[in-house]
Structures are given as C-alpha cells and as structure tokens.
C-alpha cells in the first residue's frame, strides 16, 4: 500500500505569461512516518513527439514527512525556451508532476498545457520564430491525470515488491502474477464444472 497519497494539487498563477515560474500547491497525506525524503519533480514536455525534449524544471526533496497531512508550494522556473522545437512552442503540451520515494517514482500527475498568443494579431498570423515573451501559458488544472505506480516502500518487510531480477518480461509485477493465478483458477473451475454436470 502506498504510504503517500496526493490529496490535492492547485495550479497557481494560472494562466500566466510563459516566463513566469510554475507554481503548484500540493497537499498530500502520509499514513506513517517516512524514513526518507520524498523527491518531487516537475517535468515539462517540450515536444509531444519525442522525450528528448523533456525538461526537468526542478527537483526538490521534501522532508521530514511525519504521519499526517502536509502542504507545500512547489515553484519551478519556466522551461528553457531555446530547447523547445520551434514547431512545438505554440499549442498544447503536457507538464508532469512526479513524486518518488527511495529512488522509485510512485505517482505522476499530468496536466495539459496550452501555450497561445494573447494578441489576436499574433493569433491570426503566428510568427515563424515563436515570440515566447508574448505567449501565455494555460494549465488545465481542473483535469489532472493521475497515474500511480506500485513501489517498494519498505525494504525488508515487503519482499513481494522487490523488482524481479529478470529483464523484459520480468517487468510484469507480482500482483499480475497473482491475477494470472486467479485466471487459471477460473479456467480450472469451469473444466471441473463440466465434469460435474456430466457426472
């Protein structure tokens, strides 16, 4: 079971000019005292087509984290505009807020981000080289996409969460194995049911 759950994230200073820093006000709840710090990251997706343009805007350690509800504001500088492909400057992209514990990411919150010119003239005839200082960033804060990952929160207590050593196929987790087992149970049962009815 995850020890940390995001209770809420409020996107602040939104919409705002492109060069304003990102501000997320994060509320999370922790079910028991954490031994180590949490590591939060903001990743800006520079281009939908390739991860090579992803920019990690900032990484912060958050701790100590005792049991209970906590809140903090995570501010990060805007992306380096020179690393964004020209064609991707204007339009919709994604910003990711991730959290990890003991080097393992356990939750990822994704938001759509729309960068657009506020000036109607520029909207009509966007310049060939994007004018970032005239862009407005709008984060779709009401529709976060939350993805949780199963991680090993305790080292010794939870042997089942230790990543399997095999590569490739080994990546399917133990819980999926358990599901498989259930599936085999089910098929078994249907076989024997037939047998019973025949008898």
């Amino acid at each position, binding site marked *: *079971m995850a020890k940390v759950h995001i209770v809420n994230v409020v996107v602040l200073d939104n919409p705002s000019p492109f060069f304003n820093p990102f501000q997320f006000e994060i509320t999370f*709840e922790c079910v028991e005292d954490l031994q180590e710090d949490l590591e939060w990251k903001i990743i800006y997706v520079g281009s939908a087509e390739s991860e090579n343009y992803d920019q990690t805007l900032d990484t912060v350690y958050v701790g100590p984290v005792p049991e209970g509800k*906590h809140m*903090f504001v995570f501010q990060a500088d805007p992306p380096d505009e020179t690393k964004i492909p020209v064609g991707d400057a204007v339009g*919709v*992209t994604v910003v990711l807020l991730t959290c990890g514990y003991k080097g393992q990411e356990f939750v990822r919150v994704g938001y759509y981000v729309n960068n*657009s010119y506020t000036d109607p003239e520029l909207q009509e005839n966007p310049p060939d080289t994007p004018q970032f200082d005239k862009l407005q960033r709008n984060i779709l804060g009401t529709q976060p996409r939350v993805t*949780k990952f*199963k991680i090993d929160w305790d080292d010794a207590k939870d042997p089942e969460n230790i990543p399997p050593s095999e590569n490739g196929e080994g990546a399917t987790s133990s819980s999926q194995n358990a599901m498989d087992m259930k599936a085999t149970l089910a098929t078994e049962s249907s076989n*024997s049911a037939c047998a019973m009815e025949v008898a």
Partner: protein
Amino acid sequence: MQLLKPPWISHDGGKAIFSVDLHPDGSRFATGGQGQDSSGRVVVWNLKPVIHDKYEQDEKVPKVLCQLDQHLGCVNSVRWSCGGRFLASAGDDKVIIIWQQSSYGGGAVFGSNVVNVESWRSVATLRGHEGDILDVAWSPGDVWLASASIDNSVIIWNTAKWPEQVRVLRGHTGLVKGVTWDPVGRYLTSQADDKSLRIWRTTDWTTEERIVDPFADCGGTTTVLRPSWSPDGQYLVSAHAMNNGGPTAQIIDRDGWNTDKDFVGHRKPITCVRFNPNILKKVDSKTGKNVQYCCVAIGSRDRSISIWFTSLKRPLVVVHDIFDDSVLDLSWSSCGRYLMAVSKDGTLAFISFSTDEIGCPLSEDETNNLHMKLYGKSAQTNASSVNPTIIENPELLRLREEEKTRAKTAASSEQIPRPAPPTPQRAPINKQIETRTADGKRRITPMFIPPIEGVETPNKSYEASFSSSQQEKSKIVVEKVDEVVEPNVSSSRPPSAFTTSSSPCKGTSLPSGFNGAHASLPARFGKSESSEKQSESQVPTSACIGMKRKHEEMPQACLAVKRKRGRPPLYDRSAAPPPPRPPSPLAAPPPTSTQVVKTTQHVEVVSVLPEASLSKSARIQIPGETSVDIPPPLLVVENDYRAGSSHSGGTPSLHRVSKMQVNVVSWVTFLTSRVTTAAATVTTAAFTCHDKSLHILDIKTGEMILPPLKLQGRSSQLFVHENTIIVLTTDATLTIWDLENKKRILSESIRHLVEGQSAVKSVQITSEGTPVLLLTSGEAFTRCPKLETWLLLGECASVRRVVQPEYTMLPPCHPADATAKPLTSLLHQTAAYSGSSRVSRPVISDDARLSLTEVFINRMLTSAQYLKSSHDYKYWMKRKIQFFIKEGLEKKLRVIFDDLLGPNVSSSTLDQAECRSNLPKILDCDKKSLLEEFLREILLAKNSLQLQRLYAEYKEQLDANAVDMI
C-alpha cells in the same frame, strides 16, 4: 421478500466485487473488489438509498460515502469490526488495512470524479502474509482479527496492539480461503484447498479438529471458501464440500464435530456461507409453539443463493440466476432482515425480508444468556477477558506483579544514553522551510496540516479548491534557511518494475483551446515504455564504458577476460581487476600475443584479490591520546611526490611518507615504489609498496624497526593492531607477524574463504591472539590454532536471510563491551545482522523458517561458547528460550531447563546429559541463576499462561534445590 439489484452499486463500471459487509449499525455497507487496472478498491456505501426508494431518487443523499483506492491488489475481503468502529480490508497485495473514520472530513478523490462524503483513513497496515489474503474475520468482542491467505497460513492479529501478531496458525497444506469464529470466541475455523477444514482452539491456538471426510472429493475450484458458525454456536457450516458426487455445504455439529448433515441442492461448489447474526424465533402456525432457529444464506458458483432455517428441512427460498457469475460473498444486517450478496460479475443483490418471513430476533441478553447456559461464556465476557486461560497459581500472579514493577523501575533507573532515533520533528504549521543541499537542490519541509476537529463538518475551503487552478499566487509563506543540508535519501536504487494504475478522468472532454492536443500526448501521462527501456539500457552502457576504459589501461587483462568467458563467474571476477604491470625502467620489448596470454593466465591464477592502491596523496590518522585542542597526528602518503623521468635508466619516481602534526613535519622518508597501503598505531607505522615490500617504522622517530620485508605477492590489505601486522596479499595469503617477538604467527592461504566473496572487510586479533576475519558479505571466521583451520562464527547469509528478523537482532554493543562480548562486537562490525536488512527475505515454507531460526540461534550459541563469551551465550540462550516460548515448544524448553537444573532432579536424562549437567556452570554463568532468569521469560511472554505450569514446576524444583543447598 423483496429482491433488488441497485445498478449504481458497481466498482468502476462492472469490475468484480469480491466482498460485502453491512455495518453493525445498519447505516452503511462496504464492498471490496477490483479497482482500476490491477489495483484494489474498497467502497463505503450509504445503506439508506438501497432500502428506500425515496432516498435513492434524492440527489442530496449521497450514495458513495467513501472510496478507498489504497490497496494495490484486488480486495478479497472487507469486514466491519463487531463494534463498528473499524473496517478491515485485505487482498492480493498481501496486506490488511484497518480503516477508521477520520476527522479530516471528506473531499474529492484527487484525479477522479468521485467526491468522498466521509474520510476513512488507515490506522494500521498489517503485513505478515506472503501471499494474497482471501478472507478476514473479527473475533466476537473484537479481541482478535484472523486472516486467511494463500500462503497456507492463518494469522491472528491483536486488535488492541496493531500490528502485533498473536499467532501464526500453520497446518494447512493448501490455500486457506476462509475463516470464521464461533460466536463465543472459543474456536476459530479455517477452510482451505487442502481438502480440509480446521477447528482451532483459541486458548492455545492448536488444532482441535481437522475435518477431511466431506472434502475428500473437492477440487480447488472456488475463489473463496467462507464458512460460518451459527449464532447459537451449535453448528458450523462449511463452504464447498461433496456428498455422493454433489456439491454441499457441510453442517458440522459442535458436539463431537459430527458431519452427518449437509445442505444439498446447489449445482456447483459453494463459495460462501453466512449465518444471520441473530437467533430467531417464530410461533409455529401448526403447533402454536415457540420455535427457535438459525437462518443461513448459502452462495454458490452456480450463480444462485439459497436461504435455510435450521428448523426446516427444505430451503426457505432459492434465488436462481441472480448473477451472471459466481457468488463471492454474503452479508446480513444486524437486524437480520437484510441480506446482501456480491458476485464476480460486479453486481450486488439486496434482499429484504419481513419479520413474518424471517422471524423475530432474540434480544442480545437472551442470546448472551443462551451462550452462558450452553458454553459458560458469551461474546460479552470474551471481550473483557482477553487472556484465554486463568492464572492457576497464586505464586505466578505475585511474580507477575513483581516483574512488572521490577521492569518499570529498571526502565527508569538504567536509561542508557544513546542517540535518539531519527524521529521527524513536528513540521511547521504556518509555513514551509526551504534549505539547500550540497548539490544545489532545494529541500522543503512541508507545512503540516493538523486534523480538523469534528467529524461532521467537512472542510469547505478544501472542497472548493479541488483539482483547480487559480490566478493567484501561492499564499504559503516560504522561509528560506541559508544552510546546506543533506537530503535524507538512500543511494539511488535500480529502477524497479512498476505496475501502473492510472486514473485519468475518463470521458471528460477538453475545453476549447486544448483541442489541438497531439495524439501522442495522453501517452505521456503514464510512464512510457521507451523511457523505461532507456533507463534500463543505461546501466549496461555505463558498464561498457567502464570496461572500455579498463581496456585502454590494460589491454592484456581484457584480452584474458574475453578468452575466459566460459569459465565460472568466480574466475571472471577475480580476473577483472588484475594488478597493473609494474612500471619497469627497463622496458621489455613488446610481447607477442601468446606471451600475453601466458602472463595474464599466471596473474589470473595467482591474484584472487585486487591490489590495493592509494590515491596520489592520502592521510591516515594516527591513533593516540586525542585532545580537543590539538588535531591528531597524521601519517601522510604522497605518491609521485617527484615524478621520475620516463626514459629507461632515468631517475625513478619518488614517493614520500611523512608524519605531520598541525602542519609540522615530524619525519619524512622517501621510497621509489608507489605506496599501496598504509596503517598506523600508537607505536608503529606500516606501509606496503607496489614492489611487494613491507616497511615498518617507529611512529615517533620514523626509524625503520626492521629492514623492508619482502612479501610473496602484492599487498591487498594491511592491518596493524598494537604489535601485530597483518598483510593480505593479492593471492589471498594472510600473514600475521608479531612485532614484539619478531615472530610469524601465521601464514596461510585464505583463498577458499574469500574467493567469490566481495572482499575482506577486516582482520583482527582477539585478546587471546587468535585472528578473526570479517568479510564484507557479513561472514566472520576465526582461526582455531589447534584445528589449524578457520571456523565460521555466527551464521552464513543464506540462513540469516530467511530467519525471522526479530531473532537475528544482535544485542546492543558499546565499544567498551568489546572484550566482554567478542561475538557481538565482531558481528556488529559486519553490519549484516541488523533486523532491517535491505535484502528481501526469500519465500520459504514456514516450517523451514522455524527450523532455520532454531539452527541459527544454535549456531550463535556454539560460536559464543567457542569464544568463551558468557555474555553472548546468555543473550542467545535467552533468544532461544523466547523463541521456544513464542512457538509454544514446551518439550524443547524442558530439555533446556532440565539441563540447567542439574542431574539430581532429572534422573531420566541423567545418562545422556551426565557430562554436561554435572557441571554447575556454563562458561562462567551459574546454571541455577540462568534457569531462574530464563523462567522469568515465561512470565514476560504474551502467552505466558499456557506455560504457567511449566514455570511452576521448575520454579518449585529450583526452590527445593536451594533449600537443599542450605
């Protein structure tokens, strides 16, 4: 009778629901099952809209009270505690979560459309099972919680002290699929796939009865097997049993556990049985007499439910085809008029009865009276007396009290000053504090939000701000503290395998302006495969770089490695870091390839350990009287102090060794070969050079005590203790010299010990002069001079890893204790015995684990005995006794106690134990006082009452002995 299937009760649109339970106060009910993807879900529902049409239509009446998505695997069982305060849920993620309503109030579930009216938070997470948990059950009076798992065990949890385990019940040889308590808490029943049903006594947690006959023909074809006890306690009804080839629910009579009756009629195996919690009464229409009976609901894989009265031979009602798939759980309301059933098809059925149909429930007092009359005990009395047996011996009572006060005073008087555990300090509640780490990253101490008082008022301000965005900037005060801190994170770990469980808001359309989103963008919300692959492939890449670099440095070595691919990995490892060839001033002609192979082969065979190397300049603290004002003197090694000319015959490089104190050089000496290792004591400085020489100097004057010693090989490690010098060469020869007597103590190859191991951590000499070898893998060896061989102290890692961690804990050790507790201080240095070892415990059978735990403790005892350490011996003996007490192994305890008691009492064991038990002492501990001390362990144990007779017996003999002595 009314039957209803509320369409709004579902898990994420039709995922299987595995369990249902109605709250004892009739206000709500919980379901457990599958959630999104492979995760689990628990939902707390409002019962009102199910019962009343009016509330169902009313938008203001919430249907979902709370959705809990914390389980990472399907939830197989949800059960409210009898008192209704807690909810236990358990599932495929091998944990049980105990939920309690929280004062934080409700709120939206972040990232979903669900709004929680109530907030339930986990008060405990119970870990212990090694496999999926299929059923849980609270004992009457909520004294215990039992859980059944596919790891073949049932665990009894202490509800007063989470997450304490009262006992692990082992015995089933197949997946345990259901548990139930008898209504007075005297028995626990578990049903398993091993074609058996076991009845356990709660007094001593042993098997009262194992019932196999009705299950002989059963196959493991059901997801669950939930049996149930009748509320009057007279009958136990099992899930899937077979009679004449047909599936039945077996009725087991409490009287003699007879199995001559069963419920017949279902066409497929029975998955779950649940008795109406009330004993019911009705006036028989024919005779006009009052009849008392119990009512049971039976659910089957044939998708039907049958309801029976114990007073009727035929079922009250059978509902066919109520589901599209197997029935998985049933639950009655405490009033007895409502029944709920859930199915794998993801739906819930609700059946309500009138009092005429079902009968009138007996009052609580009447039920208790009946229980008292039948069993001399009721659920009420059970709650008050947690201990299953009474104290029989007044002496024991007195001793218990004594022990309590003694423990109290002891705790208060001998408070050992030790560093406090790193408890996180309370965080600020009005601001966040930001510091910087050494690498420039920020470390934020978040603002703590105290719980809101009062359950009934959900905090509106939070609700309003859910998943939103604001124009305003943050109002949280950020206090920047100008100090460099160390982030509290462990070194990065390999990327683990992830199970994703994403919860994007489905079916929500994006507002205008976001329409132009690239089709591949949504994929980025999860972890894309390519990124994972990338991170995976990064590891081998960097390894390759490392290899390449080595390749450049020493091509010959790499060549050899390549050639020897087919060899066992052991050799590969030893061959990987061969010592670089010495920079010979007389440069040899470039060797031909055959020669290369020859020489490297030679190196490979000889060098087991890597040669040590010191960086260009190294400082080693010289021990001695340290004072606050003066920094300790240093032994400074400066390799390549003056670089030599590379020409052949040119001046060789000079390497300098000096002693410095507060920047004043006491003495200096120069060498022509690189210094590879150096060590210093109060009297001596020693260092080895690349040319296989060992230099020993007087630390005060810098004079050589002896001319340079020529070693057999290059030095891998060097240790100096007082007057002994220990050198471990790359060919794994360990040589020990006594400087005072100018004598060699030992020179022996320890290749067999270190080969395949990571490295030697240290070599020490005990006060008796025997060498002790510590390996980085955690093994410790001592050399027995008489046997002329090495003995393993403690236990090897493979056993240590499987032993229950509470028994591998070493006693605390202070440096001052080192001579009194040699074993402890040694093993502490290996740092491999701590209970919270990072290595995962391999899955082995419980019996094997128990046996290995005993083996482990015995090994520790033998080691302690060998080292003649009475402290260590006593400690491990105590652990052994504690272990036997916990597992209730009375016979084994007796053997120990008999031995300690001595020969004059235990005549039966006289012959075999004569030689040992005649001695009044073990090491230098008096056996009698040991026995006295160990007997006290029984008192301190949680299950002391089971062993109280054992205690009384030995205490009596001990006292009698003492009188004889006088």
